[in-house]
């Protein structure tokens, strides 16, 4: 018997007791696109201060949707938080405008890096520091250049011509310009060479250790994410199917089979996977 199946209720359980101080908290949140498509269903996620929380799951599980809700940009895709709350430092924030959220210290590095291609590296960073005064921005810029010397070397070049890895560094640097408390990264390893991914993850660890930053990490690459994270949530078709400390998740047989690609039973056919998923859906 390969699996122990968990109901989503186990993920909601920690909030029933008097909640410990969480920096960011999604509470029983439901997100609907176009008044019709339910993308997130009754999801609760807590991000404690100072650690790395990983949000795992396959394509279309709703990971990016949660980040968009966090940053207040759901409305650009006709999405809306139908019920539940998102709170940051115990204040409800899911109705705030994106620029207000940035001012409070929430920032995200979007999927696919999204540097402004026609702007130079320096101008990209300047946009990250848009909410800051000139003096603050100058300080932040030095911090970013200390973290990514490569960006300093190429600061007057147009961002669109940089390699994928450099663009990812720029995207992270640009987000750091906002002087964030919580940094969310949407698929930072997407489309990058393994060596470059190592560099990016080194930087993420440094941000946690040296700058005491809280990181919310969205990944398909579960192996990488669980290596670095303290706690993890696994999303499937809009709900949390599993959560636990990164160690526990990495040791879980389900996770090993379906997210880490480790199999105990030798070869598996796709039919088994489909069967498993169907069964799990019924039971949860």
């Amino acid at each position: 018997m390969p699996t122990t199946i968990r109901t989503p209720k186990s993920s909601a359980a920690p909030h029933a007791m008097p909640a410990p101080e969480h920096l960011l908290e999604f509470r029983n949140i439901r997100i609907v696109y176009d008044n019709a498509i339910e993308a997130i269903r009754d999801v609760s996620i807590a991000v404690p201060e100072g650690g790395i929380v990983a949000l795992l799951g396959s394509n279309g599980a709703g990971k990016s949707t949660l980040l968009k809700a966090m940053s207040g940009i759901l409305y650009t895709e006709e999405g809306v938080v139908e019920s539940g709350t998102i709170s940051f430092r115990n204040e409800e924030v899911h109705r705030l405008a994106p620029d207000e959220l940035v001012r409070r210290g929430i920032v995200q590095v979007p999927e696919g890096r999204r540097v402004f291609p026609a702007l130079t590296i320096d101008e990209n960073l300047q946009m990250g520091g848009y909410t800051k005064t000139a003096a603050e921005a100058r300080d932040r810029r030095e911090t970013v250049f200390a973290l990514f010397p490569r960006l300093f070397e190429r600061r007057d070049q147009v961002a669109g011509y940089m390699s994928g890895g450099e663009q990812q560094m720029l995207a992270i640097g640009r987000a750091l310009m906002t002087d964030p408390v919580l940094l969310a990264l949407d698929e930072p390893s997407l489309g990058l060479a393994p060596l470059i991914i190592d560099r990016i993850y080194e930087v993420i660890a440094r941000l946690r250790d040296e700058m005491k930053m809280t990181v919310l990490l969205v990944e398909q690459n579960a192996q990488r994410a669980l290596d670095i994270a303290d706690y993890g949530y696994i999303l499937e078709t809009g709900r949390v199917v599993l959560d636990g400390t990164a160690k526990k998740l990495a040791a879980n047989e389900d996770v090993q089979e379906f997210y880490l690609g480790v199999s105990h039973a030798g070869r598996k056919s796709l039919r088994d996977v489909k069967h498993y998923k169907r069964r799990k859906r019924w039971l949860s």
Partner: protein
Amino acid sequence: MQYFTQLLISGLAIGAIYGLIAMGFAVIYKSTGLVNFAQGEMTMITAYIAWTISTTVSGNVFIVAIGAIIAAVVLGLVIERVVMRPMLGEPVFATVMVTIGLAVILRSSINFIWDAYPHGLDVGFGRTIVRIGTIGVRTGQIAVIVTLLVLLAAIWAFFRYSKVGVAMRAVAADDRTALLMGISATRVHALAWAASSVIAGIGGVFFALSYDLSPAMFQLGLKAFPATILGGLDAVLGSGLGGLLIGITENLAGGYIGSGMKEVAGFVMIIVVLMIRPFGIFGERDIERV
């Protein structure tokens, strides 16, 4: 030769007016992705307000200029807030239709608020003729060419060096990512409408100085729009230069071929240029919608 120079200079002068209005189109397109078909009407309203200030408050050039600029800013902001912002996120086609409706309303408001007769804007400036060598030029013509050149330089510097200017480029390139960086897209849009209204309004006031105010003045927009297409809808500086090109072509064609050609020449050139460069002379290649 003298005939040619004379044509060239008056072509530059009217071209500078087209260029200013064309830059108005481009500023809005660049930061909001919309073509504002009420640009010519907004230009006309600003010119009429300048005329009202000159007849009721003071005929002093500076007072009229400052009053007109303030009026243009207010006009741009009000239109953005009342008409355009509710349309945010709606299909581009619907939004552009709204600007067409707005154009009709503004056009007829001239008859409600003012009247249908032509007026001359007289601020004691612009109609004196200066002689440069054997060529006579009106001071208003010199002023409008200088103004266009100064604005071209100022706008270039604004987009290149100022934080807000860079933010406008960022919003144009990727508005959702700009939002993630804490750049308020609505504020950038409001600024674009105000700036566009002022730049085009300056063109309108210069037109009224050199020619006449009349309810038909909105047609300036129809002349300036091709200038924007020629220069590149997303190229603010290119639009300014496109205006000059249209002005010169019109005047030379009118002077050498016949006055009937004057109306047509600009459009003939546009068709030819767009066949070769469909995104305009200075436009970026990846524009996909108008």
